[in-house]
């Protein structure tokens, strides 16, 4: 089945510099149907990488393919099957959640009946039904984050790019979001997320990549990372800190 063999994301020799390299010849593969966590310290280049994948930044060099679609050659086709949720929820404060979702559905040309069904389903799942008709300007950051996530899911993307999706959420909200993401992956979607909450990556991610200074310094399942470090009992936090400090020492 060639469809299954196609990676959700193929990144080759990706480069981006703002005076100095931010993403430095990055190579990355994400398989279809997995939840992939991209970890790294502040300024490692995680968000820049995801923004280039989402089409928000022009790479200086390199190639990005989403489900085999070359993003530089056919960006619109790539955008049709992907969704991006930034760390700071970018929604229209003057719209209500329902209006926002229907607006996003319109942008992605989702048929009317389907859009309506999905909107209701998402509002319900993310516990936004009660506030579906209130303007987003009244919401807390966590609620806005949920609205942004719902907007990303309303057109049922095959690839979901999430930048720090759980930041600012309380425990209950975080649980809801995690459940929704888990369900999406089980339904066949691919999710790439960045996070500083290592426990989330440890428990949710199928595979984990650790970035440092614009490069991937480790990539694999948690077991593979442990094996790589030679410590079967190490937590992800131990592995992360060891890898990052080693690389820092080497670069110094």
């Amino acid at each position, binding site marked *: 089945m060639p469809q299954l063999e196609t990676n959700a994301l193929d990144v080759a020799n990706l480069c981006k510099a*703002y*005076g*100095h390299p931010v993403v430095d010849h990055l190579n990355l593969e994400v398989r279809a149907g997995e939840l992939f966590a991209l970890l790294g310290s502040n*300024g490692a280049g995680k*968000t*820049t990488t995801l*923004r280039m994948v*989402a*089409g*928000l*930044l*022009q790479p200086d060099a390199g190639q990005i393919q989403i489900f085999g679609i070359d993003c530089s050659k056919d960006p*619109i*086709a790539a*955008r*049709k099957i*992907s*969704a*991006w949720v*930034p760390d700071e929820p*970018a*929604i*229209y*404060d*003057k*719209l*209500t959640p*329902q*209006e926002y979702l*229907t*607006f*996003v*559905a*319109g*942008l*992605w*040309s989702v048929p*009317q009946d389907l*859009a*309506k069904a999905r*909107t209701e389903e998402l509002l319900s799942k993310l516990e936004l039904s009660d506030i*579906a*008709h*209130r*303007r987003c300007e*009244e919401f807390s950051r966590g609620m806005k984050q949920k609205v942004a996530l719902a*907007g990303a899911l309303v057109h049922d993307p095959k690839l979901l790019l999430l930048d720090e999706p759980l930041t600012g959420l309380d425990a209950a909200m975080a649980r809801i979001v995690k459940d929704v993401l888990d369900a999406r992956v089980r339904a066949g979607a691919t999710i790439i997320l960045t996070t500083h909450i290592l426990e989330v990556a440890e428990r949710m991610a199928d595979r984990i990549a650790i970035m440092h200074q614009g490069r991937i310094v480790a990539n694999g399942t948690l077991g593979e990372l442990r094996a790589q470090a030679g410590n079967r009992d190490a937590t992800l936090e131990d592995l992360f800190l060891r890898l990052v400090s080693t690389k820092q020492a080497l670069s110094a």
Partner: protein
Amino acid sequence: MNARLSPNPPTASLQLIQLFLVNEWVLFWRAFQPKGSTANWRGILSNRLFWMAGVFLAGHIFAYETLKGIDFGDALKPGLPDSQFLIILASLTFYSIFVVSTNILAITNNLFQVNNNDLVLTAPLNFGIYFAKQMISGIFMNFVFSCYFLLPLVDVLMLFGGIGYIQMIPAALAVCACAYLLAMTLTLALYRRFNMRAAARVVRISVPIILLLGSLAGQTSRFYITSLGRAHGYDLFAHLHRNGWYFFPVHAFQGSLGALAAMLMLAVVAFALALRFQPDRYRQVMLIAGGQTFTRKSVGQSLSLQDFQSPRRSVWRKEFLTARRNPFLMQQFFSTLIPVVPAFMSLGVTLHSLAHVNWPGVAALLGYISCLITGLFIKMALLNEGAVDLLASSPVSEGLLIRYKLQQAGLLVACIFSGPWLALAWFSKSAALALVVADIVAFAALSVIYIAYRGNTVDMPRLKQKRLPIFGMLANFAICLVAPGLAFLLALGSWWALLPLALLLITLDLVLEPELRKRAVSKVFRLASPA
């Protein structure tokens, strides 16, 4: 007694007022920048400078062109006023007073909305300090705004040589300052003690007082002019009385009760509309009033899925909804529309006597009006974009998004100006054609700015996406510059000169934009980089 608040009352109060004064200015300038572009002092200052430069240039050319088209005859010789000259002078004076007055109202609103954040409201301040900082900053701002519009007029009048009516300008400034002082005193004092309904009543009370003061100041200025022994001062007012309904604000300025009533009615209607459609603006004011919050319940029933069937409809509908629900944008909308009214008045004056119509002047005025509107819509499109990431990651190309937005703006411009355009075409086909070309050029130039703005906002480092004031400055400058530039060329009767102007504008954008972008990115990155 709260000793902690004022260990040394006079000094502490003074320092607090100074502190607030600076704070007010920063917040005020930033409030007028494109959303989120709150970079730094340099950005704030340069944005203001661009805007001032544009308005100043526009004001000069506008005033010059309007006066230039008139046969002054012996008007420039002291003691021999010419009726047409007086009409134009009165028109420009009216224009200035109108703009200043409306800005006063807008600024009053702005102060309430923008500068009363929770920190200030919960700070241990006594009413006197709070009141003083509002007062001082408000007066300063009004003088700044007055100067924007009045200085060009003064300059041009001086250019034409020794006009005695300049004495009216300080009188107009004095009117504005006095009116504002009183209005602020009343509204602030009562907002603190009463609820929304009472506040609305206060506004209704303060408006006639403002106008009454204006009227008194007008009378004072009349005595002032008379005491100088300038006989033509009387002629001026006599002409104003005789020349048409559109001078009623000037009548009010002189103390005519009928005209005063007309102004009062207009102002009351404007405030009633403001309170009806912009209650959010007064939310913070209600906090001052002792914790009586006023929260407008959201309206969610206005949209159905039908409205968002296609990307085009989605964008159109979203633009409309978000603009309509945003008080700041609506304020921008109305405050930009306001100068159009006196421009139309000037048009009326120019067409008053068809035997002496200065057609290039008419076309220039219409060009000016069109560009104001065009610039307004483009600016609204810039300010009205709160989710750049979402649109940029959607499967709708940048070109299409911009087209959707411009189509909406173009449609509105066409609706508003089709009437005047047809009227102009009836009298002068070449002038009508020139106006169309002027609109196309304005659209093209502003579209380039918009495209560059969007492109650069998206293709910026994440943290600095919202900190790009340069395109806001360019938009401000272009909005102000395009109109008088076209007006100048049209007034010269050189239609072909439009072509180099268009090329110049586009070239400037194309050449400057990459350089500005490079600088912005490198500077921004330096700021964001670890040491």
